[in-house]
């Protein structure tokens, strides 16, 4: 019978219970979505890495010998080790695509994963193994010929296999802003298959180990190599691995954040719904009790509402999240990342979370009506006694007596219902925070556009050079055009000399001529110039290494062994470039060859790549801006999501608070109405409190908007340094909108006040 009662009442309170269903569904579904994709990814990645025997350590240097290799192999902690030569070239027929070339004499560590074709064979000098995605983009098949060029040498071989490599789970050509498999590929080849072998040293020594903290091996490795190496890194610093891992981590965080947010709102809904329902059914409870029904049974009955509804939500969420949304997410992300066999997965945590959601909902239901269920049956048959009123803290205010009736009344009410007031403030604060983040996203993007194109990139055209550019070719360009050469490369930096691997940072170096085409800005986005004999360092790098202006830092070119020192003159900030920046004259003083990678000018140089073979591409600023805008479209999605949350959050929270408030005070409102208060005055009483709480929420939430936005930008990783910018208008508009929502919600109650059945309420009938 009780079950019948329950289902009928769920039906008559459909709105409330449906939102509870939806919220528990979303909480579990979103968890399952991210987790299903992640669990599947981790499983596939583990298998992938194992099959390829992915290295644990990478040593880069100017040239390793077989003797070096033997010494490393003889170390106790090393399982397997191997040498290889890594070059970067360009494809001949596929639009100058970036080709990463690996030449090796054996294949023990980082073996290519064969998608199609025959096993990688180091004795086959006529073939090469090409990355599968690139082959797919360009319709290359096994048996086709493929040619690439390195330093003027053209290598043409037959494709023997299509492969994938864990080192390139994520890959993006240096010139691209976004993943485009048409523009980047990697090739595995027999060392002896490369036509020129003089001056082709082994640049990498890779190994596997069982030691957990791989970087702790550095002392031993360094001894074994007589300190003859440039860089030592572990898996966490390999770009192709790191990006995917960061993404998966972010999804992992999302899965918990979404679950918690939706669960929190669900709890709010349960608290208000159950509280109201149980309060309204006081007499029924008393009757059931008086009829001799066990109290336990009544409690279970009321817990049943939330249990049944949240259980249905959780189960459907589990199914929908794992099999629909999870699969969709995998489909989307497997287009960006290459992990063979990435399918949705699941594990016990799904069930645990679903269970927790149901448990918490049921428990909240119990807690929110526990007090009411405790009353004696005889008391239960009479209307509830008045809630204890007492002096509130606000009465100590010196101007208390000057306050009007509405204010005094509401202040006392707030101090009586602290939880309700807290929820109201908290809900609006969250809404305000999201609303500001949403609006500020646009402001930030506008600011970044202006920052990038008016202060950092002060040129109308750019020219990209291929790796093989000579000093003469560069000189030719300088003679024709007025502009600035820039060289970009990889370096490792440290705060002190002889730093260990974990005290070093891999980053970029920008060597410029100081003509102003390539702009530098400080942390306040103001344009600054670099003084000779000083360098600029990106603010995020400086922060993580603890570097201030005037400090000395140490750096070396990534694949060269020699270290140099430099004085920090500027802490710079650039949203998309994390680097140290120095002047050409200072760079050349180190004795290194200046090999520009780009040329910036205001003169129209489009099409020049056809005249000079050292030029790989030219762009106009219009193209660059377009590419930039396309890339930023992703952000628009973020803005929309923010906005939806920002509106829904205060509506749900304030409506529920209003509902709770209305139901708790319905008797008072009826009394006031009978005494002759007009409906409008009563509404004023109710809305005034809502408005106060929202106003406090708005003020508290405002500063968090910027913090949240900066946090979201920072979670993009160390290579980006977006600066959250919130304009005064953002604050004002967000505040006004949130308050408008609050007022609107108040008006939702005006009809209920007007139609308030004074007779029934005051008789305490149901």
């Amino acid at each position: 019978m009780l079950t019948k009662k329950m289902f009928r009442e769920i039906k008559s309170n459909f709105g409330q219970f449906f939102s509870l269903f939806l919220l528990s569904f979303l909480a579990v579904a979103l968890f399952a979505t991210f987790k299903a994709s992640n669990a599947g990814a981790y499983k596939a990645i583990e298998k992938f890495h194992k099959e390829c025997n992915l290295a644990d350590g990478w040593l880069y240097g100017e040239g390793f010998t077989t003797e070096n290799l033997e010494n490393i192999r003889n170390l106790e902690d090393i399982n397997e080790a191997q040498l290889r030569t890594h070059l970067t070239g360009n494809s001949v027929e596929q639009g100058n695509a970036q080709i990463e070339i690996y030449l090796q004499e054996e294949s023990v560590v980082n073996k290519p994963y064969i998608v199609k074709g025959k096993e990688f064979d180091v004795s086959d000098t006529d073939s090469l193994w090409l990355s599968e995605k690139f082959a797919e983009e360009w319709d290359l098949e096994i048996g086709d010929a493929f040619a690439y060029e390195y330093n003027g040498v053209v290598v043409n071989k037959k494709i023997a296999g299509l492969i994938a490599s864990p080192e390139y789970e994520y890959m993006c050509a240096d010139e691209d802003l976004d993943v485009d498999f048409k523009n980047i590929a990697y090739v595995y080849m027999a060392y002896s298959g490369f036509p020129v072998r003089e001056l082709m040293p082994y640049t990498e020594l890779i190994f596997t180990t069982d030691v957990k903290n791989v970087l702790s091996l550095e002392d031993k490795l360094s001894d074994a190599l007589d300190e003859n190496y440039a860089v030592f890194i572990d898996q966490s610093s390999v770009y192709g691995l790191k990006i995917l891992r960061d993404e998966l981590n972010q999804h992992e965080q999302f899965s918990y954040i979404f679950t918690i947010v939706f669960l929190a709102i669900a709890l709010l809904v349960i608290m208000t719904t159950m509280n109201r329902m149980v309060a309204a059914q006081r007499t029924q409870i008393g009757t059931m009790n008086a009829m001799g029904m066990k109290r336990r049974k009544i409690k279970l009955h009321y817990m049943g509402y939330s249990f049944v509804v949240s259980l249905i939500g959780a189960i459907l969420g589990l199914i929908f999240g794992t099999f629909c949304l999870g699969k969709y997410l995998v489909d989307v992300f497997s287009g960006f990342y290459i992990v063979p066999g990435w399918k949705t997965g699941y594990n016990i945590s799904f069930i645990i979370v679903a269970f927790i959601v149901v448990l918490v909902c049921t428990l909240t239901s119990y807690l929110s009506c526990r007090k009411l269920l405790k009353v004696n049956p005889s008391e239960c048959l009479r209307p509830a006694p008045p809630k204890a009123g007492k002096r509130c803290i606000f009465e100590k205010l010196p101007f208390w007596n000057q306050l009007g009736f509405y204010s005094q009344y509401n202040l006392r009410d707030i101090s009586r219902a602290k939880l309700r007031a807290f929820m109201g403030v908290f809900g609006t604060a969250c809404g305000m925070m999201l609303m500001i983040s949403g609006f500020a996203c646009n402001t930030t993007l506008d600011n970044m556009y202006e920052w990038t194109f008016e202060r950092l990139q002060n040129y109308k055209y750019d020219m990209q050079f291929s790796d093989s550019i000579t000093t003469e070719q560069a000189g030719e360009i300088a003679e024709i055009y007025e502009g600035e050469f820039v060289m970009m490369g990889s370096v490792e930096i440290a705060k002190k000399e002889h730093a260990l691997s974990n005290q070093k940072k891999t980053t970029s170096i920008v060597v410029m001529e100081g003509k102003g085409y390539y702009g530098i800005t400080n942390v306040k986005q103001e344009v600054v110039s670099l003084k000779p004999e000083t360098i600029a360092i990106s603010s995020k790098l400086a922060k993580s290494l603890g570097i201030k202006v005037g400090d000395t830092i140490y750096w070396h070119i990534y694949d060269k062994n020699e270290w140099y020192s430099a004085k920090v003159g500027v802490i710079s900030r650039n949203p998309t470039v994390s680097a140290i920046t120095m002047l050409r004259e200072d760079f050349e003083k180190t004795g290194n060859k200046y090999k520009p990678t780009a040329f910036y000018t205001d003169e129209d140089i489009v099409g020049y790549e056809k005249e000079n073979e050292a030029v790989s591409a030219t762009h106009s600023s219009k193209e660059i801006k377009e590419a930039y805008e396309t890339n930023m479209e992703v952000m628009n999605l973020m803005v929309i999501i923010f906005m939806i949350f920002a509106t829904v959050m205060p509506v749900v929270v304030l409506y529920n608070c209003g509902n709770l408030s209305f139901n708790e005070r319905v008797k008072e409102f009826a009394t006031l109405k009978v005494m002759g208060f007009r409906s409008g005055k009563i509404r004023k009483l109710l809305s005034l409190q809502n408005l106060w709480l929202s106003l406090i929420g708005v003020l508290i939430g405002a500063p968090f908007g910027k913090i949240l936005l900066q946090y979201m930008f920072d979670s993009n990783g160390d290579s980006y340094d977006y600066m959250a910018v919130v304009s005064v208008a953002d604050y004002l508009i967000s505040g006004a909108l949130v308050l408008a929502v609050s007022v609107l919600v108040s008006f939702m109650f005006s009809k209920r006040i007007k139609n308030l059945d004074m007779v029934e309420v005051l008789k305490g009938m149901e």
Partner: protein
Amino acid sequence: MAGKTIVEFKNVVKIYGLGDGEQIAANHVNFTIDEGEFVVILGQSGAGKSTVLNMLGGMDTPTSGTVTIDGMEVSKMNDNELSDYRAKTIGFIFQFYNLLPSLTAYENVALTKNIVKDTLDPLELLRSVGLEEHKDKFPSQMSGGEQQRVSIARALAKNPKIVLGDEPTGALDSKTGVIVLELLQKMCKEQKKTVILVTHNADIAQCADKVIRMKNAKIKEIKINDNPVPVKEVAW
């Protein structure tokens, strides 16, 4: 002692629900009440007495017929007019007092200042109901009888022409009930207020000037008491 007519129910019909669920709560009810009368509407539960009281108080409107109070046709008023009517003409006393829990005794009475302009002095009123010392107490700190006396003070504060009571002694023991009733009777006589009480307690009817007895949604009898019994002599 009877003055001019202040309440007139003419052919009042009240029907709740529609179709098969139709329920007649007042069936052609006719009566008048004069200014300054102490009236008791008596009847078993379901007799229709609360329906009549609700229409008197402007909390409900008749399905047909007219309710005229103090020259105003209450049956034709809208929500705001009804609020104003309740504010100026009617003082309510409830069975369960319905004081606002977050206001003190004094504040509950003073609350009327937010409703009408000319109110009586709250402190004076509390004194007259014998609660001057309790003025700073909250409802939860007072006994039922004390709360009901505050509620009377609150009803009087607006200086209404009519005081309506819905089982005002229903939740009280007989000793406190007597005190409350005495207060109402005294007020009726001294301040020339029209007091209308609804009750199922026939003993109370002995104290009234006029007793309207209801049964099955109809008026069964209207009796004028020429010699009402003082409350003290009534026992229940």
